[in-house]
């Protein structure tokens, strides 16, 4: 049987729909990748997967029977890593789960399980970093605004944390790389996209901030400078904890 190349839209539901097709057409050798559709290699059969909520739900239901709820969450997190070429890993994991009677999520000797565990670790680490490195700036309408540029698509994983922490202030976290954000209006959160033309890009317009915003930013910098113990300086350790790519959004590092 030739290799079938399944191209899907990049959503989790799309991935699950693809799994449905694998089983429906009893496909054996499969490669999974995110669209758009491109001309395939000579001996590959390329097939576009049209995301289908009902099919996705059926696969999800099946997964819930084979995995613990934490296992399903981990799979979703690994998917958000959004890494080149890793879709096939997820497919491998899911097939291994369906083809085995027992729960396989702790079989770290298996290469798919191990790789998924690695992806989850990477994405959890960045999620955790974002919980730490988000720096809000207070806008004049009282909203606390933050811009981030994480390596992975972790924004959906951040909602719960910030919602339960900042229940009494309006806030917005915007992923500049992926051009979407989450906004909390004191009741609910929603995904938003904004068109930042040069002129209304919040980071450039200090007029958008409240007066005491600069005061607290300066105080924070003062604090940061004064807690350092010079005789213990250790730049390498410092850089390992806060890699340079995060600096441009860190108040104390600007």
């Amino acid at each position, binding site marked *: 049987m030739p290799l079938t190349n399944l191209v899907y839209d990049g959503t989790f539901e799309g991935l699950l729909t693809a799994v449905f097709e694998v089983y429906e057409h009893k496909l054996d050798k499969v490669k999974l990748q995110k669209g758009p559709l491109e001309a395939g290699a000579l001996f590959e059969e390329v097939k576009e997967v049209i995301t289908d909520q009902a099919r996705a739900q059926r696969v999800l239901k099946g997964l819930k029977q084979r995995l613990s709820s934490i296992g399903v969450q981990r799979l979703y997190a690994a998917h958000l890593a959004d890494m080149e070429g890793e879709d096939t890993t997820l497919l491998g994991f899911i097939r291994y789960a369906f083809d085995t009677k027992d729960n396989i999520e*702790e079989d770290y000797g298996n290469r798919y399980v191990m790789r998924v565990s690695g992806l989850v670790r990477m994405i959890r680490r960045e999620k955790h970093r974002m919980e730490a490195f988000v720096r*809000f700036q207070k806008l004049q309408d009282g909203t606390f605004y933050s811009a981030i540029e994480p390596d992975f698509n972790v924004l959906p994983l951040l909602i719960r944390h910030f919602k339960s922490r900042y229940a009494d202030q309006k806030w917005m976290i915007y992923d500049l790389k992926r051009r979407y954000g989450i906004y909390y209006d004191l009741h609910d959160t929603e995904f938003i996209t904004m068109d930042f033309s040069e002129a209304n890009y919040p980071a450039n317009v200090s007029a958008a901030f409240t007066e005491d915003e600069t005061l607290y930013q300066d105080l924070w910098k003062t*604090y940061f400078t004064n807690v350092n113990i010079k005789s213990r300086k250790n730049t390498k350790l410092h850089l390992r904890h806060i890699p340079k790519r995060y600096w441009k959004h860190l108040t104390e590092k600007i």
Partner: protein
Amino acid sequence: MNMDRITRKLGILADAAKYDVSCASSGSKRQNKDKGLGNASNGICHSYTEDGRCVSLLKILLTNHCIFDCAYCVSRKSNDIERAAFTVQEVVDLTINFYRRNYIEGLFLSSGIFKNADFTMERLVRVAKKLRTEHNFNGYIHLKSIPGASDELMQEAGLYADRLSVNLEMPTVAGLKLLAPDKDQKDMIKPMAYLKHAIIQNKDEKKLFKKAPMFAPAGQSTQMIIGATPENDSEVLRSANYFYRNFNLKRVYYSGYVPVLADNRLPALNTSVPMVRENRLYQADWLMRFYGFRVDEIVDNTSPHLDLEIDPKLSWAIRNMQAFPIDVNKADLQLILRVPGIGLLSAQKIVSARKFGKLNWEQLSKIGVSVNRAKYFITCNSSQFERRDLTGNNIRQFILASSQSKYLKNNQSQLSLF
């Protein structure tokens, strides 16, 4: 707020507080109530200083005025420095505004002693009370208890703070007498004993009445300064062990002495900070708290000092070669935890994964085992066994040689655990 004044105060009072090493913001489970501000549950490090230490809390002194004269302390009476004091409201405003911007997990408030213990403690408590009751603030609050503070104030402090600490400062009474002549260890132990009792009592009440108020849910901790006085590691760890057992401490922190003052009772000003020793003490501390090691397995009369070149677990393994090799596909978790190169997480993963089949070197390495060290102490589902007839000393040399190059490349390795 007067900007220049407050910036100046913050500079002085953050600077004076930085030698206190405890910074953790975990161990509490305070939730955000009634749409208030913040929660204290996950212990996040929001930034890192250039010396590589975590910044999680706004750590400041209420004042650096002090009536005492402890030799190791920058705030001591006889030191000629600029003095400052925050008002209660200033500390509250800083905390709230830093917290709202996600700079911090909460507040760690300590203080020099103005007037007397209770006068000072009362102000610390007032800051915490204001944050909790007026601002519905549920972030982390760690208050340093002033030695000699009354039971009533400790009781009130426990109602608002997540963690309370009384610093022992010196590992032994003799060390304390020498460097802090105004302090009496009894004055430190009394509030510790009160806290222990109150925390236990609160736990019992919680069992009966879910609504009983929280009392210092993250427990109490203490700190010892290392290297200012001549105690050896055995004395330090025994002292820590004593306080863990008798006062139910959550953490003992070890603070490598940073020479800041010229005083003939203290190491000279150009003495370097004992950072490797400090790190070894933390590693030893972990072994006692999480790996099931007894203090006398880590240090004893024949080896009262921790080995600075290798970590204490490897050091123990080399002194106890008869305990190895361990078959990781069969052994109990407790034994696997004793293998150099296998941490808590990897040990747990091994025990889960081996239910599916025996593990070999390659799989162990993927699980996160540092095979370079572990290979001398374990057998698994691969034929080679590295130890052959190597002696403990051989192994020590091999491991040192292979980690030496890494050490040269990045000397950061000295600061990580295992």
